[in-house]
């Protein structure tokens, strides 16, 4: 029987994958062809979605982007045997976009049936967990330390140290919390994991639980991801029935329970302390630190809170060893990062690579330049709190340290490209507006400053006391950076100041004009 693969990833669905799947089924019925249709995650080659793959003796052959109306002609062309067609892309693994990647964390996404335990196991799943079950908590933590893994949510804090702190704080109840509040524009790797390979996240969380003796885990998922919610719940149910979760994980006598909780539309709840408040059923306002969540987190108990990709990287470390993982990357940025190419690019999608490739490699070699065909003028890296970089800086290598050298940050690895029609002053204004919209309202610099920021930029744009207001804007950004309670107010000046620095003309500043 022939096996076809069509993604159920919400990106693919947003482009009509469901219609394609239905058309395939009905066409096959019509033609009396028997086939097995597997719904997978997405390969992350979104410009080719909906992507249809067919298993052939020489591997999977891909077709895309497919629309429902293409299906009869695909069958006509013998799609089930990898027949040639205008949409045929050849063996999928040979596509340079994929071939040039180092798929580690997202190794199975797009390949397996996300909710099939058998498929997961057949592709190396649960080997890490089995290995970890043979280790003590201390050994597990040491392994994570040795791997050099740093938090992939944006702050890049060494994961092992966080785990160690939670381990060192005595308490009868500890928690593992997965931060799945992926709110940055330009990022979707968490979603791809949760929709495309949820077991790897579950496995990572169980290992984290074993490390510190936590028996309860929560995945705090943003409400904008309904498909991920469905897939995760299904996967948890299956993992539970098969004994990977529950009161006796794989007969080890250790227990780990896992529940998905949804957010309710609040960017700030991606900040870990606000997330904890929200998980406790409260207003998602920031808690001050110390105490760290690892000491006093969810319900006041020691809590490991890690991003999806961080936790999903853990099983591999225990499958292949810390040394293997550490072998990737550069400097203090070890392992791989799933970069996400978005905005105005021809070939948007997911590129998992070891740290160190340059921005221009990503934008042009992978991304193929802008979607509109116009020059790429600016790139925002690291979400709404990330800096805007001009073309002059596109050769910057993508690692934590190099980016901080150009007053930028890698964040969650999202990269949003803009062509030369972009007005960078309006992007700066948007940054402040976004901050005003999402501020929790606790600290003054963010609560009042973001609103004033919008107003001051408006005045600059209307050329009202431009010089004075530019000065005021810088002062305001300074206060927000140095005075804000959390990263929202503290980092929102990044896009504002970088836009001002690199694109002064958009603010009506002539190059000759004195800026300070």
């Amino acid at each position: 029987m022939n096996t076809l693969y069509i993604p159920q990833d919400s990106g693919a669905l947003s482009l009509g994958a469901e219609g394609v799947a239905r058309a395939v089924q009905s066409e096959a019925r019509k033609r009396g062809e028997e086939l097995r249709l597997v719904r997978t995650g997405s390969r992350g080659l979104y410009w080719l979605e909906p992507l249809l793959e067919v298993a052939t003796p020489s591997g999977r052959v891909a077709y895309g982007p497919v629309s429902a109306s293409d299906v009869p002609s695909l069958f006509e062309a013998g799609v089930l045997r990898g027949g040639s067609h205008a949409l045929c892309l050849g063996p999928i693994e040979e596509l340079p976009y994929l071939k040039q990647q180092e798929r580690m964390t997202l190794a199975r996404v797009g390949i397996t049936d996300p909710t099939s335990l058998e498929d997961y196991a057949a592709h190396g799943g649960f080997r890490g967990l089995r290995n970890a079950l043979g280790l003590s908590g201390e050994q597990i933590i040491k392994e994570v330390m040795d791997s050099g893994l740093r938090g992939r949510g944006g702050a890049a804090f060494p994961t092992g140290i966080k785990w160690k702190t939670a381990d060192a704080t005595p308490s009868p109840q500890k928690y593992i919390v997965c931060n799945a509040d992926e709110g940055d524009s330009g990022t979707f790797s968490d979603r791809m994991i949760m929709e495309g390979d949820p077991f790897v996240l579950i496995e990572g969380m169980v290992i984290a639980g074993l490390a510190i003796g936590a028996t309860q885990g929560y995945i705090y998922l943003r409400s904008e991801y309904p498909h991920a919610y469905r897939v995760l719940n299904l996967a948890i149910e299956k993992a539970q029935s098969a004994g990977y979760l529950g009161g006796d994980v794989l007969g080890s006598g250790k227990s780990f329970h896992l529940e998905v909780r949804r957010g309710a539309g609040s960017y700030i709840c991606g900040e870990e302390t606000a997330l904890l408040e929200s998980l406790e059923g409260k207003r998602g306002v920031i808690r001050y630190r110390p105490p760290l969540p690892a000491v006093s987190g969810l319900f006041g108990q020691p809590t490991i809170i890690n991003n999806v990709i961080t936790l999903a990287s853990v099983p591999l470390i225990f499958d292949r060893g810390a040394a293997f993982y550490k072998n990737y990357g550069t400097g203090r940025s070890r392992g791989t990062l799933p970069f996400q190419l978005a905005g105005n690019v021809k070939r948007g999608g997911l590129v998992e690579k070891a740290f160190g490739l340059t921005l221009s490699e990503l934008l042009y070699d992978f991304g193929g330049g802008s979607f509109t065909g116009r020059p790429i003028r600016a790139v925002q890296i690291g979400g709404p709190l990330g800096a805007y970089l001009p073309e002059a800086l596109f050769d910057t290598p993508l690692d934590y340290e190099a980016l901080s050298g150009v007053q930028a940050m890698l964040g969650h690895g999202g990269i949003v490209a803009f062509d030369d029609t972009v007005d960078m002053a309006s992007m700066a204004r948007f940054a402040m507006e976004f901050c005003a919209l999402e501020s929790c309202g606790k600290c003054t610099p963010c609560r009042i400053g973001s609103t004033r920021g919008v107003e001051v930029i408006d005045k600059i744009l209307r050329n009202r006391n431009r010089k004075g207001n530019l000065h005021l804007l810088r002062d305001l950004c300074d206060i927000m950076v140095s005075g804000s309670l959390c990263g929202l107010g503290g980092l929102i000046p990044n896009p504002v100041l970088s836009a001002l620095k690199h694109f002064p003309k958009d603010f009506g500043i002539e190059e000759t004009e004195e800026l300070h």
Partner: protein
Amino acid sequence: MHAIDDIDYGTPRKVSDTMVTLQVDGSAVTVPAGSSILYAAQAAGRRIPKLCATDSLEAFGSCRLCLVEIQGRRGYPASCTTPVEEGMRVRTQTPRLADLRRGIMELYISDHPLDCLTCPANGHCELQDMAGAVGLREVRYGYDGANHLEVPKDESNPYFTFDPSKCIVCSRCVRACAEVQGTFALTIDGRGFASKVSPGQRESFMDSECVSCGACVQACPTATLMENSVYQMGQPDRAVVTTCAYCGVGCSFKAEVKGDQVVRMVPNKDGHANHGHSCVKGRFAFGYTTHPDRILKPMLRKSIDEPWKEVSWNDAIGYVAGEFKRIQAGHGSDSIGAITSSRCTNEETFLVQKLVRAAFGNNNVDTCARVCHSPTGYGLKTTLGTSAGTQAFDSVEKAGVIVVIGASPTDGHPVFASRMKRRLREGAKLIVVDPRAIDLVRTPPGIEAACHLQLQPGTNVALINSLAHVVVTEGLANEAFALERCEPADYQKWKAFVSQQTYAPEQVEQVTGVPAAQIRQAARLYATGGNAAIYYGLGVTEHSQGSTMVIGMANLAMVTGNLGREGVGVNPLRGQNNVQGACDMGSFPHELSGYRHISDAGVRGLFEKEWNVTLNPEPGLRIPNMFDAALDGSFKAIYIQGEDFAQSDPNTQHVESALRAMECVVVQDLFLNETAKFAHVFLPGSTFLEKDGTFTNAERRIQRVRKVMPPMAGLADWEITMAIANAMGYSMHYDHPSEIMDEIARLTPTLRGVSFEKLDRLGSIQWPCNDNAPEGTPTMHVGQFVRGKGKFTMTEYVATEERTSRKYPLILTTGRILSQYNVGAQTRRTGNVAWHQEDVLEIHAHDAEQRGIADDAKVSVASRAGNVVLTARISDRIQPGVVYTTFHHPVSGTNVITTDNSDWATNCPEYKVTAVEVSPVARHSEWQRQHRDFTARQQALLKERETIEA
């Protein structure tokens, strides 16, 4: 706004065995570990600008003004949320910090009205202070941006105004409501720039869950939440530390004054009973002190049907002395007596009993504790050896199990209730024993009693015996404690007694209506849940077995070893401010100060020598005995200081007859109260603001009352008593109440070490205070009981004679509510009437349905003693078969229906059990109509009084 003379340390004082030394701006400071940098800096006299931090609340970290630089750390940590570390080097003032702070203030002021000159906080505003401190000179944002300046005021609360246009969203009010008061009535609505303080669901304060404790007003750094009195009068200019004259918690206050006018009352952060908190009564309800109803001239009349005649103090005192002497000459020296007041100071109370014993030559002196906590005195003295609660309020913070019996702390003792709630939220378990679901049974957020033993009124003793039965028969007793600390023979006898099958929960269930399983669960929890503390109120004492129940609770505490350390004990919640003190002062007819029996010749000798008289060795009449004797014709005159038993005592018609039967009723009070309507002489008393003295609260804490203004009628109460004594030919001379306290100390071993000087120095003293305990005794019975060995005493349950019948099928029980106080003479003359305009009858839906009673309908409540008409309120707080009301309004005549039954030992009335029937009616009862006419007549007689020139 905090008190005008307070230093704010920014974050709460931490207690730690470890001290940490750090450098603040180059100076070494040593503070307890866990302190914030802000605290350390303030302690070192460095003022770090701050707005969201205040030392009554945990750090919050929102205003970002208190940023500092720490050597070796990146950025600018907030000093309020950063704990001190050994060797830390902190700079609080640098040009960079100045820029940041100025920038933050610039943001604040860009959304704040510029009306400082007309703002009620002008001159005492933290925002204004900070603008000055950081040197804010301009607001470059202008004032045309988004703002909240148009948000309207909420003036719904009678005492304070909420002006959101001035709000800086520091959340101090929200946090105070949660952390200090524990009510959580406030929240922040919305988020970001739109964040605003919201009572309840974006509603007015009065419609919200707010209990008007004022913690938010005190916490507010601006004029957003401000006392209306400050709006009207402006800022006060001085503060006088004094003690609240409402309940037995004894909150310390700063009366903030302008001239001799009180602008506002601010709870004292250094108050040892209240630690800076207060309730709606203490903080706001002081307006009665200057209410126009106050009578400020002495008055006389021959008969209560005559108009009053104002007279001079001399004439009034002379008349009283003359009448008393005349009556004694005609009817014997025992024919007169006096009542001391738990409202008055210790010194005043002491003088009244001295007047009776030394000048009247008898022991006919009693106090209103007779009708509330006299069983406490009897019960605790019998078992433990002294007539007082065993703990300090602070002790509750160490309790693992809190038992509340027959009390509703959130109504009666709200400031202590807040402490209790905090402890419960920290995880202590709660057992409630009450026929009614008091607030604590389930209080948001999160408080839920582990057990609510909802017993039939009048069955306390059966229940307490059953709890003891479970402890003893299930092997949960602390035998080591009981055998070592108590009389062993009595213990064995008592064990056998409670082990009887009669007291097995399964039997007691039949009597109390409490399921056996619940009794067992509660007993196990009490015995095994760590430190267990009992707090009780009048639901224990005001029964025919009130004293027995107090003994029963002491037995239970002894058998589980829950005495003699922090976190445990048996603690009466005293109703009035000075119940404890009035009792301590020898106000009972059988006892001299310090609970020493009048028959003890040695004790008498001390007093006889000091007072230069011979004392009568036999006990005198108690209040109900006085009434009986008056009706009998052997008791003819009474001097009543600050009590209103025509409203407060049971069986009103009996009391009224007794008053009418007397020849000379002298009432010394603030208002023409119910009792004064039967008086022949009215002597205008003074409020707590008008005199010096001391009050003793429920935890034996003696605190100073300080004169804020001169007595409006010219004399303080102690001066009046002194004048009567002198006029009767017994010489008394004191220049100041401190001299009275000196005499008390000389005569009373437990108070030997107390003086005004020491009180001023220490703030307060918990007795015993003597050579053994020069600074007082927070916890009693440490190591051994006051009586030596604890005495287990058998407590047979005897059902009250007040039974339900076909005619009177319901049980009425009474209590009080938060906003009103006792007979309401004070609170009814304040804005507190906004919360409680009348007493209502709470009735279960089932009973209401059966009788065709709708919510808000007028109903007759009839007992064997009388009947009154009240408004019905259908409620699920009580069980079917029980109805409940309060007694704050005279027109309700709640005590018309209560009976003559009383505690066997002390004659404390059985207020809590009255068999009644409730039925719908259209108009007031006969008594109420008579009362209305009588009141109208007495008001007319007052109005028609002959006046004298001032």
